[in-house]
């Protein structure tokens, strides 16, 4: 018999009950809750007269609707305000711990989980948010769920689910200078497609992944969903343990050693067999930039806007043409000729301290180009904001003409006041370049933090390796 994959081990450790028809009852260790996908779930509990099964497993934070400036004045939009107040009220009513909007620990749900040690190796982690895959970076099984399932987890601490197929993506060798986890993620999506991981749980492995920091691994696992996979994960190693040790909710004392003993087994066995394997040579990956309206529409920064008529499939051809029209692009234009109107550095993909450092390193002593209307730098949490300020990063950003904001999802999906105007072109460190995602008619190009910062200075996209 072949060995077990990391996914097999995580699955097995959380299996409560297996039905004969393939459905399984899986225990959920950590439930992250935010204001957008939870109100109807709490309402469902009320209507059915149910109580949360284990309130200590849940942690709530408002992030999508929160303003990133003048927070002391509250939320101007009454609809957004009601949603955030509803979360506050639900947490009070049901006894769930919350980092409220004015708590320094508030931030993007996928940033604060790991930061607080609420995300731990070996856990099952769910949230009513597709980017929950982020937490797989810790050797956890983490995936997004809908609101009905949010209610289900609140009521039962379990989910009815079925096992996915397993895929291993090995990125071997070393990426060149200026190539980040974001570029690796985009290159993978470019290769396997935005549905390439549908039906799979992906384990990212190989030399280039082991060399990544926890921040980089989170960026990578965060984007697993953009490849179609609900869950992405990386095996536990010393980097994982070093990150977790000492976090507020991490185990300590005897529990720490007991935990580490288990966590160190959270690797795929050498003889484990995956349903699918992908091998990528890290040395061939260049800084990436998306040109279209799906993350798979991506090219290396030195490339030109592709010509959709070169595609064989008529549906894809039509999609490509539509994407070019929406993005206001002509095939054959060098990507570096594209001028940007706004730049967004933030989101659950790229708002951690390492991301902010990378952006600051590129711009030190320079100013944003005049044609760039706005550069938003939105840290992932209040604690990251503090850390960045203690390192003087905020000063570097401000001196460059960038705006240094308060933590939240911000212009990744523009549910708060931060958004693109129709036709505006944005260099964004977020995860989705869908039509209208950052504001109706807005044109998003996904890049790494260093690439975004460099575009802000140059006024157009540039290859950060020669900047």
């Amino acid at each position, binding site marked *: 018999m072949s060995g077990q994959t990391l996914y097999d081990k995580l699955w097995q450790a959380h299996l*409560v*009950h297996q*039905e004969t*028809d*393939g*459905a399984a*009852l899986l*225990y959920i*260790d950590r439930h992250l809750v935010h204001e*957008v*996908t939870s109100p109807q779930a709490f*309402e469902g509990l009320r209507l*059915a007269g*149910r109580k949360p*099964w284990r309130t*200590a497993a849940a942690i709530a934070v408002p992030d999508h609707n929160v303003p990133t400036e003048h927070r002391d004045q509250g939320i101007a939009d009454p*609809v957004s305000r009601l*949603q955030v107040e*509803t979360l506050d009220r639900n947490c009070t009513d049901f006894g769930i711990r919350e980092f409220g909007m004015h708590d320094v620990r508030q931030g993007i749900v996928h940033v604060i989980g790991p930061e607080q040690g609420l995300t*731990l190796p070996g856990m099952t982690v769910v949230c*009513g*948010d*597709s980017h929950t895959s982020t937490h797989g970076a810790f050797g956890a099984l983490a*995936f*997004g*769920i*809908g*609101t*009905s*399932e949010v209610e*289900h987890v609140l*009521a*039962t*601490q379990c989910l*009815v689910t*079925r096992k996915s197929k397993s895929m291993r993506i090995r990125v071997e060798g070393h990426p060149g200078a200026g190539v980040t986890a974001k570029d690796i993620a985009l290159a993978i999506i470019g290769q396997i497609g*935005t*549905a390439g991981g*549908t039906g799979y749980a992906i384990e990212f492995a190989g030399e280039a992944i082991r060399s990544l920091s926890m921040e980089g691994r989170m960026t990578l696992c965060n984007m697993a*969903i953009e490849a*179609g996979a609900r869950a992405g994960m990386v095996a536990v190693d010393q980097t994982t343990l070093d990150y977790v040790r000492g976090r507020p909710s*991490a*185990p300590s004392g005897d*529990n720490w050693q*007991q*935990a580490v003993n*288990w966590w160190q087994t959270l690797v795929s066995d050498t003889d484990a067999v995956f349903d699918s394997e992908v091998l990528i040579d890290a040395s061939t990956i260049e800084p990436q930039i998306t040109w279209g309206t799906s993350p798979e529409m991506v090219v290396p920064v030195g490339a030109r806007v592709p010509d959709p008529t070169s595609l064989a499939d008529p*549906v*894809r051809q*039509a*999609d490509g043409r*539509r994407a070019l029209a929406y993005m206001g692009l002509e095939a054959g234009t060098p990507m570096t000729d594209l001028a940007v109107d706004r730049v967004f550095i933030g989101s659950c993909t790229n708002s951690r301290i390492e991301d902010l450092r990378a952006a600051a390193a590129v711009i030190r002593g320079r100013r944003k180009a005049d044609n760039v209307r706005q550069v938003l730098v939105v840290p992932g949490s209040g604690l990251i904001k503090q850390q960045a300020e203690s390192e003087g990063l905020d000063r570097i950003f401000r001196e460059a003409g960038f705006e240094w904001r308060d933590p939240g999802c911000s212009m990744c*999906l*523009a*549910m708060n006041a931060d958004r693109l105007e129709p036709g505006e072109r944005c260099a964004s460190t977020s995860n*989705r370049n*869908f*039509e*209208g995602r950052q504001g*109706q008619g807005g044109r998003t190009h996904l890049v790494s933090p260093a690439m975004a910062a460099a575009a802000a200075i140059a006024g157009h996209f540039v290859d950060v390796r020669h900047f």
Partner: protein
Amino acid sequence: MKPFTVVDGLVAPLDRANVDTDAIIPKQFLKSIRRSGFGPNLFDEWRYLDHGEPGQDCSQRPKNPDFFLNQPRYQGAQILLARENFGCGSSREHAPWAIEDAGFRAIIAPSFADIFYNNCFKNGLLPVVLDAAIVDRLFAAVNAEPGYRLTVDLSAQQVVTPDGERFSFDVDAHRRMCLLEGLDDIGLTLRHVDAIRAYEARRRTEAPWLFE
């Protein structure tokens, strides 16, 4: 949940791949704390010529006449015909809520994104996966014939054309049962209360830090 057994309905075609949840229901409508009322804002940015905000009277807004949902021939459609990777993107259940609220009971596509697919079943909405070549033929038939209808039979796991041609589809046995009977998942899970308690008791010993 509304049970799903057989739906015989008008088919409306959305001919593009990778339709994402931001397109299905744009983010500004996610601020609602209700579960219903999303139908008028389904595909909002494609459907209307102005910018939509929550609380508008959508009947007064300028419509995009080229968009399929605005064409008279597709009014009252219950079956949405779509392309590959339908529902990719976020986990927002507002996407199936909006589709269901707009009157649809089934979606036929060559493939669906995982989370969206799963969310549909929680809302009495049946996602049907058919081979891409069959979906191609259905698109051709819908475009050629105004009033084109299909029958989606969940018990038989078949899509039936007006000519009587039958296409079988797969569906997970558990989800099929829940949908056919309109069962509440939470109620089903709570039948396993003892198993959940036993699991927790074991884990408290094996991994006590998870319960602190």
